[in-house]
């Protein structure tokens, strides 16, 4: 059932996007083949797609876990940034540390920073009843400004001092120094393919989250609180505490995504990294239907869209911005399954009718 839902959402989105492209005077078929070539065409492009899957898996899990506790985590973007900054802070210093210690520590600081950023709205909700949608979105701005400040190059004009993580050797560029080799995530397949172990870690985390939800007391309580807070209270569960913990976990997952991107891909932090990541987490979570395998598949799809966009533009002339439109269509159809089913039924009925008409003519 869940798989069917996922398929209808994707098909519905594809149909709508194709219609939109056709209206704009492009050939949808060319666009989709371009998209496929650009993301899956060669080994190298496939590798990029696989690498891009990791952050989508983790932010998707983050939203899913919160959702199971009845919470909307719109704060993955901020938690991702805090995770990135935390990981970089740990990764650019402590030269004496060996790799087996430095990398786990850097990842842990990244997870921890994201956790704190998730725990704040969780705690606010539990203690004051403030709505987590508002607080997480607001904290996204705080995180973005804070992260930007940490690597800010400073300005002699306005007499502002550079941020604490700014790379003085980089001149006027706002970016951190490179992460030390001991804190970088090693390759599974080295360059030119470049798939790092963070991808495997993300997949393992998907399993871990499933296990947490299905096999632990914490997961059971979290789901009860999410499904029916009154029943949870009746059963003697601590709803407030569970809310805080759920948001802590959610923040940690998004933080891990940020840490993996900085320690495995960019090797530094700059404000422009990971700006958009987070919103996609919601779409991945909805499309993945709360199941870890579904989330991995949905993440893969989003990675395909992300990786193939440029090639699509090159091959078909469809602007790569259309990818965001496709993503939005997926989100809409995932959130409103009835809409997708209706659309597909309509299309198949028209096709059958025209096939019948063609048959009569023949």
């Amino acid at each position: 059932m869940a798989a069917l839902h996922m398929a209808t959402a994707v098909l519905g989105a594809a149909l709508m996007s194709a219609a939109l492209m056709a209206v704009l005077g492009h050939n949808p078929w060319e666009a989709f083949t371009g998209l496929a070539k650009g993301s899956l065409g060669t080994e190298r492009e496939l590798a990029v797609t696989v690498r891009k899957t990791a952050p989508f898996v983790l932010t998707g899990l983050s939203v899913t876990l919160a959702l199971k506790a009845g919470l909307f985590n719109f704060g993955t973007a901020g938690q991702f940034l805090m995770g990135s900054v935390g990981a970089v802070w740990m990764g650019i210093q402590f030269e004496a540390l060996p790799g087996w210690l430095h990398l786990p520590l850097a990842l842990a600081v990244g997870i921890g920073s994201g956790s704190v950023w998730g725990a704040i709205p969780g705690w606010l909700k539990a203690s004051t009843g403030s709505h987590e949608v508002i607080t997480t979105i607001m904290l996204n701005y705080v995180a973005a400004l804070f992260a930007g400040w940490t690597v800010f190059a400073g300005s002699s004009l306005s007499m502002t001092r550079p941020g604490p993580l700014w790379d003085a050797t980089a001149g006027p560029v706002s970016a951190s120094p490179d992460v030390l080799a001991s804190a970088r995530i090693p390759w599974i397949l080295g360059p030119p393919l470049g798939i790092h172990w963070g991808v495997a870690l993300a997949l393992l985390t998907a399993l871990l989250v499933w296990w947490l939800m299905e096999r632990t007391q914490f997961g059971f309580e979290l789901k009860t609180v999410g499904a029916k807070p009154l029943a949870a209270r009746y059963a003697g569960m601590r709803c407030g505490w569970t809310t805080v913990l759920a948001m802590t976990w959610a923040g940690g997952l998004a933080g891990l995504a940020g840490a993996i991107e900085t320690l495995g891909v960019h090797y530094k932090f700059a404000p422009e990294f990971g700006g958009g990541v987070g919103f996609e987490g919601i779409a991945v979570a909805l499309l993945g239907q709360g199941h870890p395998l579904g989330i991995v598949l949905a993440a893969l799809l989003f990675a395909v869209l992300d990786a193939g966009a440029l090639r699509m533009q090159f091959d078909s002339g469809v602007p790569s911005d259309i990818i965001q439109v496709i993503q939005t269509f997926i989100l809409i159809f995932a959130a409103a399954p009835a809409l997708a089913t209706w659309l597909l039924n309509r299309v198949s009925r028209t096709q059958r009718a025209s096939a019948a008409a063609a048959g009569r003519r023949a």
Partner: protein
Amino acid sequence: MNAAPVAKRIGLRHQSAGSRRNMPHPVLEVRGITKHFPGVVANRNIDLDLFPGEILAVLGENGAGKSTLMNIIYGLHPPTSGSVRVGGRQLECRSPRDAIAAGIAMVHQHFHLVPTMTVLENIVLGAETTRRGVLDPATAERDVAELCQRFGGQLDINLQAMIDDLPVGMRQRVEIVKALYRRARILVLDEPTAVLTPQETGSLFQIMRGLRHQGTGIIFITHKLKEVLDVADRIAVLRRGAVVGHARPGATTEQAMATMMVGRVPSLTIPKTTVVPGPLMLEVDTLTVHRDDGTTAVDRISFKVHQGEILGLAGVQGNGQTELIGALTGLRPVSSGTVRLNGRDTTHASARRLGREGDTGHIPEDRHTHGMVESFSVAQNLVLNLCNRPPFTRWGLLRLEAIRAHAGRKVADFDIRTTSLKQPLGSLSGGNQQKLVVAREMRDGLQLLIANQPTRGVDVGSVESIHHHIVQQRNAGRAVLLASYDPDEILALADRIAVMFEGRLISLSPAAQVDRNRLGLLMAGIPA
């Protein structure tokens, strides 16, 4: 279907209501309805006729297929096979809208009213009178008032009152008027008395008789035998999805109907051995509890419950029982007074401490809001409040083996009818859901059992089994506090009877000193 000839026909026929021979045209004909759900046959080849001006009682246990049948008639489910005819015309019901258009109205157990709107607004909602696209409340009010008047006072409602402020019985009346306003010829009442006080039930029956007189055909779904004998013209009994018999109130007995319904001879009275009450278990002293809005719900109440006795807490709904139980189970703060459980002060103990330390079992008043999670499996629901203790968890990990074994035992012991332990609880019938809650709360090591409306909306067979289990707990030496709005339930089970009225205990005496009549008066606030 043209309404006028039908009305005429009904008008001609209401004189002979109840006599089937003179009524060749049923207003509703159900023919060969069969309904399959995955793994279950909910309805098997059901035939039913409803005549204008007749009250047809459809009697059956929870899970017998009553609700499914009504949902088919009302257009909520398509039948697997069979047909429904209204006034001789095949009803192609694809949604409730078609059913309403054909003159079928349904009053559900849970009302579909907007609490923040007035009675009038709720009645006309979706069928508003307008003048050039603008609402015309004056005409609507006149029409509704006229409609109510036709029933000579039985349907009196203050049209400007807010639904929120009305008692349950009044809300039901609004639902009925809503149906009549939509010109319903067939009225389906789904367990209408489950939520009513005896007085409210009495006036509902008055209304039903009035409607019958006006020619409305009424399907009255229930599992309460007394009521069927009281008000029905004809009775159809459903068991396991099939009609197993018809009866007429004059020619049958409670026992006979119960036997038909359950398929065996159930015992309608509970055998109780004499047990000498043991030591004191629960001691409530001058307890005061407030509602959320700050008004006093429980006013300086004191009582004791001993081991091996059932203290029955009788009273009409809304007299503070809910808040009292809430305070005793740690779900509502105590304003003043003390509660002592087995000698320890538990006045401000949390639900976590009371429930999880194995002291207090609590069958909540409304299983849907508190007692269960519909989307969780049967097995998960059976450990809802036990999931943090051995053997169901170790080092924070759930032990699925133990949870399954526990579920298997409870399902067998309490006869919970489910196709598997993994089945979501929401897909079970109400009676089986309630049995599950009861099964979970009756656990080993219990000291006090608080049962609040333990058999509300539950069929005869399940009532029998739940009552049996409650008495067993008492016989095993546990203290039981039983709160019920149903005086018969209190009289059947309690060793001592306390009556609550407007937040106070107005009577507390051994059960032997209270009879049905006196209990009724006490519940109405009239101390003898």
